[in-house]
């Protein structure tokens, strides 16, 4: 019997790139949960009108209960992240009210987990989304997990949101993000095997400036790291070597 092929993050993101409906985002949350070996991965979109939408691995009974109880107005994660743009560990939120305590107790009963990390995402025109991972473990384990993965989690949350925006018919699509000539030059030299120092030197810019150009290109290409970004740029024919 063949062992199942371990999931790779770049492969999950490649799948995500093809996503054209909510079910595909749902599949991505399942893959991400398996990849990170945690209890839950959730993407939650909240509109300025209070309309919500999303996908993820929570027990559907919890999702229904959350909606029925109107917990969007109680949930300290939503309250603490709405209109914000910094990622938060759930420990840092305000769980002191009686309602919040009850909410937390029920969330644990429904298997949400006792730990969580959420990334607020600002989209165009007041769109707001949250990307959340949650788990059941002690504080030390959770701190180690978030420290190790928070960069990637921030990026993944933004990719999910970009996909969700792209296929929502009622939404104004984000302006197509093309690479500038400078970014294309940087990616081309990297693809040719130049070191960062050589690329910076060739383009007559500092390495610090180059890092920011590469980071901007990486974001626009929906890539998790520089190697992945170069591969994406090649695959899309944006660069030729």
């Amino acid at each position: 019997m063949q062992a199942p092929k371990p999931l790779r993050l770049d492969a999950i993101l490649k799948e995500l790139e093809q996503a054209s409906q909510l079910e595909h985002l749902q599949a991505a949350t399942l893959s991400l949960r398996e990849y990170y070996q945690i209890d839950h991965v959730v993407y939650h979109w909240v509109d300025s009108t209070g309309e919500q939408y999303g996908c993820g691995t929570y027990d559907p009974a919890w999702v229904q209960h959350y909606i029925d109880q109107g917990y969007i107005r109680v949930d300290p994660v939503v309250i603490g992240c709405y209109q914000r743009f910094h990622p938060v560990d759930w420990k840092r939120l305000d769980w002191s009210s009686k309602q919040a305590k009850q909410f937390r107790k029920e969330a644990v009963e429904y298997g949400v987990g006792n730990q969580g990390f959420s990334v607020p995402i600002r989209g165009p025109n007041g769109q707001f989304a949250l990307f959340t991972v949650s788990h059941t473990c002690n504080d030390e384990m959770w701190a180690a997990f978030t420290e190790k993965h928070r960069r990637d989690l921030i990026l993944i949350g933004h990719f999910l949101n970009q996909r969700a925006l792209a296929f929502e018919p009622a939404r104004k699509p984000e302006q197509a993000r093309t690479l500038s000539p400078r970014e294309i030059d940087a990616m081309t030299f990297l693809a040719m095997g130049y070191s960062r120092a050589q690329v910076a030197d060739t383009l007559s810019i500092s390495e610090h400036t180059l890092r920011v150009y590469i980071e901007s290109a990486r974001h626009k290409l929906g890539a998790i790291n520089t190697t992945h970004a170069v591969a994406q740029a090649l695959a899309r024919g944006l660069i030729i070597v």
Partner: protein
Amino acid sequence: MIRYIYADELKNHHKLASGMFVDRADQFKTRLGWDVNVDAKGYERDEYDAENPLYVIWENEDGSHGGSMRLLPTVGATMVNDHFGHLTDGVRIESPLIWECTRFCLSRSANGRVAAALMLAGGEVMRGFNVKHYVGVFDARMVRIYRAIGSSPTILGSQGEGRNKISVGLWEFNEDARRKVAARAQISLAQSESWFNRAFGGDNIKLVSQKELACA
């Protein structure tokens, strides 16, 4: 002390907020002669203040404004991308790991420690929220101040001459720079972290005890 306040919370800090917008008018309009809008209240505000930015503010002991700066993620609307693309080699700087820092402002009474304290706070934000770089717009006068604090940006591009020179720059922040600006600000790293934790919630709240979990 350092305060970290989102725009929608400024209403709870009237004196501080009012001082900040008035000092911004004083710095950018009166002293630098920038083409900025000052309203009837004497406040300098622009469209990015309406994007619910995060302000980092030095609060003097009497509760007044000593200095401040404004942070926004570059995945949304930013001054650099909207107005200064010609200074960034045409690159639209955009990533959740890069934030924009603008309207770095010091009140007339502020000393060098305030500028350093703001930089130190900028470093706390980077460490706490996984921000790798800041991109910012600043005036010629700030170049000297940043150098004096030991936190000079990499300049991407500039326009104008002399005191009218406006530049777009990049900051990174490492442990070494952090210690340097902390020393310049005469603020201990522990103190700086405690201000940050006070604003964004401590780490010591137990969500659910193990006992509760066992029952669940």
